[in-house]
C-alpha cells in the first residue's frame, strides 16, 4: 500500500504530467504519419528519456506507444495506408467502410475499442506480473537460460513466415552481441583494438539504425508518393459506437484477451496480435461473407487486440527481463540505464516504480479518449505534412539521438552500419525483430549458459534437474522439434523463386 502511495506521488506531479502530454502528442503524430512506427517513436524517445527520472522516462514511452498504435488507424481509414504496421490487418476493411460513408463510425469504434482494449491489457498486466514475479524469485541460472532460450525461440516461431531466416537473424543478433567484454571472464572479444567497442554495440543506436534509419531509407526512395485523402467531413465519431459494443462485446473481449497473450509472447507484438485476431474474427463470424465489404466486426477484434498487446508485452519484460515485443525490447534497455534491472527483484526492491508504470498505463489509456478525438479532428492537417520535409528532419533527429547515447560519432557509426544491415536484411526477407531480441537477450543468455555450464561441468542433464527448468527446457525442445518438422514439410513450397518486391517501390 505504501508503495502504491509513493507511486501515485511520483506520477501525479506537474512535470510528469507535461511529459505525458507531450509524449502523447508525439505518439499521436508519429503513429498517424504513414511510414513512422510505434517502435520508431520509442527509439527516438529514448535519447530524450535518457536525461529524465525513471518515472517520467517510462511514462513517456508508455504513453507515446499507446497513442501511436491507436493513431495508426486514422490514415488506414482515410488514406488506405496504415500509420503503423499494427493497423495493417484491417486497413482495407476500414477504407471500405470510409468509402461507404461510415468514416465517423469507423474512427469512433477504433478509438473507443483501442482505449478499452488497452485497459484490458493493463488490467491483466497488473494482475499477472506481481504473481509471476513471486514465482520467479526462486529461479536459478538454469531457469533463466531456458527462459531466455524459450523467449528467443518464440520470437522466431511467431514472427517469421520463413523460420530459417528467422533463426539466422536471431543468431546474427546474438553474434553481434558477442562484441565487447565477455560476461564471464571479462576478456575483450572482437574489438580489434578499439576502445569504444569494449563496451559492445550500444543498444539504442543499434535500435535507431535498424528500426528508424532502415525505415527512412525505404521512405526516401518513395518520398513523392502520396495517398489520396478522402474528402469527407468528420462529424460525431461517437455516434453508434454503443450499438456496436452491444452487438460485438464478445469480439471485444476475445480480441483483447488474445492481444494480451500474443503481446506477452516474446517477439510478437501489436501487429501480429491484430492479424491473428482479425483472422480469428473472420473464421468464427456468423457472417464471414461480409468481411472485405466494410464490415465493423473484424475491426472490433483487431483494434482491441493491438492495444491490449502493448500491456501484455510488459509482463515478461518486467518479470523476466525478456521483451514481449520490439517496443519492450527498447524499454528493457531503458530500465537497465535507469538502474532498475528488470526481473523479479525489481518488484521487491522498487515496487513503487512498477506501480507507477501501472498507473501511467491506466492514465495513458484514459487520456487517449480526448487526445484521440482531437487527433481525429485535426487528421487532415496532420496528414498534409509533406514527407519530403519530414524525412530529413527525422534523419537529423536519429543522428542526434544516436550521438547522444555515446557522446561521440561512434553512436552514429553504429546507427549507420546497423541501419544499412537492417535495410538489407528486410530487403532479403530476414525479419529484424529476432536480431534485435538476440542483441537484447544475448548477454543474459550467455551469462546464464556459461554459469550453468560451469555449475553442471558440461553435463547436459543438469539443465533438466530442477522441475521448472525441466518444463521450460522440454517446452523449448518441443517448439524446436515442431519447427524442424514444419521446415522439412514446407521445403517444397519455398523452392519457388521469390519475385515480389517487399518495398513496393
Amino acid at each position: 500500500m505504501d508503495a502504491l502511495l509513493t507511486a501515485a506521488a511520483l506520477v501525479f506531479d506537474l512535470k510528469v504530467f507535461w511529459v505525458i502530454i507531450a509524449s502523447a502528442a508525439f505518439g499521436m503524430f508519429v503513429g498517424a504519419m504513414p511510414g513512422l512506427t510505434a517502435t520508431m517513436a520509442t527509439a527516438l524517445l529514448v535519447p530524450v528519456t535518457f536525461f529524465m527520472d525513471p518515472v517520467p522516462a517510462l511514462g513517456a514511452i508508455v504513453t507515446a506507444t499507446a497513442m501511436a498504435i491507436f493513431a495508426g488507424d486514422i490514415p488506414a481509414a482515410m488514406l488506405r495506408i496504415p500509420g503503423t504496421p499494427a493497423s495493417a490487418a484491417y486497413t482495407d476493411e476500414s477504407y471500405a467502410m470510409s468509402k461507404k460513408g461510415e468514416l465517423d463510425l469507423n474512427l469512433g469504434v477504433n478509438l473507443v475499442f483501442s482505449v478499452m482494449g488497452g485497459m484490458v491489457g493493463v488490467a491483466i498486466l497488473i494482475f499477472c506480473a506481481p504473481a509471476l514475479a513471486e514465482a520467479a524469485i526462486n529461479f536459478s541460472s538454469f531457469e533463466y537460460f531456458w527462459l531466455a532460450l524459450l523467449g528467443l525461440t518464440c520470437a522466431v516461431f511467431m514472427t517469421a513466415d520463413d523460420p530459417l531466416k528467422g533463426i539466422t537473424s536471431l543468431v546474427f543478433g546474438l553474434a553481434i552481441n558477442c562484441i565487447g567484454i565477455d560476461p564471464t571472464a571479462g576478456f575483450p572479444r572482437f574489438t580489434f583494438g578499439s576502445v569504444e567497442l569494449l563496451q559492445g554495440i550500444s543498444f539504442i543506436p543499434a535500435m535507431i539504425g535498424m528500426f528508424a534509419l532502415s525505415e527512412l531509407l525505404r521512405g526516401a526512395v518513395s518520398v513523392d508518393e502520396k495517398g489520396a485523402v478522402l474528402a469527407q467531413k468528420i462529424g460525431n465519431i461517437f455516434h453508434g459506437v454503443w450499438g456496436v459494443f452491444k452487438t460485438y462485446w464478445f469480439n471485444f473481449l476475445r480480441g483483447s484477451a488474445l492481444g494480451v497473450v500474443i503481446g506477452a509472447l516474446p517477439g510478437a507484438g501489436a501487429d501480429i496480435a491484430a492479424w491473428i485476431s482479425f483472422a480469428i474474427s473472420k473464421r468464427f463470424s456468423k457472417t464471414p461473407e461480409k468481411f472485405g465489404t466494410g464490415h465493423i466486426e473484424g475491426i472490433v477484434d483487431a483494434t482491441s487486440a493491438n492495444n491490449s498487446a502493448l500491456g501484455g508485452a510488459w509482463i515478461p519484460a518486467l518479470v523476466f527481463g525478456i521483451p514481449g515485443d520490439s517496443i519492450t525490447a527498447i524499454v528493457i534497455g531503458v530500465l537497465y540505464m535507469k538502474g532498475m534491472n528488470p526481473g523479479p527483484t525489481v518488484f521487491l526492491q522498487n515496487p513503487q516504480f512498477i506501480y507507477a508504470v501501472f498507473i501511467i498505463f491506466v492514465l495513458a489509456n484514459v487520456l487517449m479518449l480526448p487526445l484521440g478525438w482531437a487527433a481525429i479532428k485535426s487528421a487532415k492537417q496532420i496528414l498534409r505534412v509533406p514527407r519530403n520535409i519530414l524525412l530529413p528532419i527525422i534523419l537529423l533527429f536519429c543522428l542526434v539521438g544516436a550521438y547522444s547515447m555515446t557522446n561521440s560519432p561512434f553512436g552514429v557509426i553504429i546507427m549507420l552500419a546497423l541501419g544499412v544491415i537492417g535495410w538489407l536484411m528486410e530487403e532479403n526477407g530476414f525479419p529484424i525483430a529476432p536480431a534485435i531480441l538476440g542483441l537484447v537477450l544475448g548477454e543474459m543468455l550467455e551469462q546464464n549458459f556459461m554459469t550453468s555450464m560451469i555449475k553442471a561441468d558440461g553435463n547436459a542433464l543438469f539443465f533438466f534437474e530442477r522441475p521448472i527448468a525441466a518444463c521450460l527446457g522440454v517446452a523449448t525442445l518441443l517448439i524446436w522439434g515442431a519447427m524442424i518438422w514444419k521446415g522439412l514439410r514446407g521445403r517444397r513450397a519455398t523452392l519457388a523463386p521469390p519475385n515480389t518486391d517487399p518495398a513496393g517501390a
Partner: protein
Amino acid sequence: MRANDAINGLILIIFAVAMIALTAAFPEFPGQHYGPSLFPRVLGALLIICGGLLMWRGLAARRAGAPLVYMAAWTRQPWRVGSFFLMLVSLLIYILVAETVGFIPIAFLCMLALFLWFGVRPITAVIVGVVATLTIHWFFATLLRVPLPRGWLDAIL
C-alpha cells in the same frame, strides 16, 4: 536489392568462419573448460548450418530459374537512387567532419541538400533547415546537455 539465398548463405558462412577463426586467439583458463570462446563458437557453428541450408535452398531456386540478384524498380530511376545514397552520405559526412566543423553548419547543410534534392522549394528549404537545426540543437545541447560538437562556432556558442 534482393540477392539469391545462395549469396546470402555464402556471406553468412564467410562471416561465421571469420568469427570462429578469431576465437582461436582467445585465452583458455587452467582448470576451466568453458572460456570466452565457447559461446561465439556455438553461434558460429549455428550460422554455418543456417548459411548452408540457405545456400542449398538458393541453389535449388537458381536451378528453377530464379535470378541471382533482383533489383527493385526504384533502382532504375537515378533520382531515387540518389535519394537513397544522399541519406547515407549525409550521415557519413557528419561522422567524418562534425568534430571539426561543428554540429550546426553540418546539420544545416545536410538538411538543405536533402530538402532541395527531395524537391522542396529553396526558400522553404532554407527556413525549415535553419529552424529545425536550431531547434534540435537547442533541445539536445541546451536542454538535455548533450555535448554536440561546436566546431567553427566554438567562439560564439
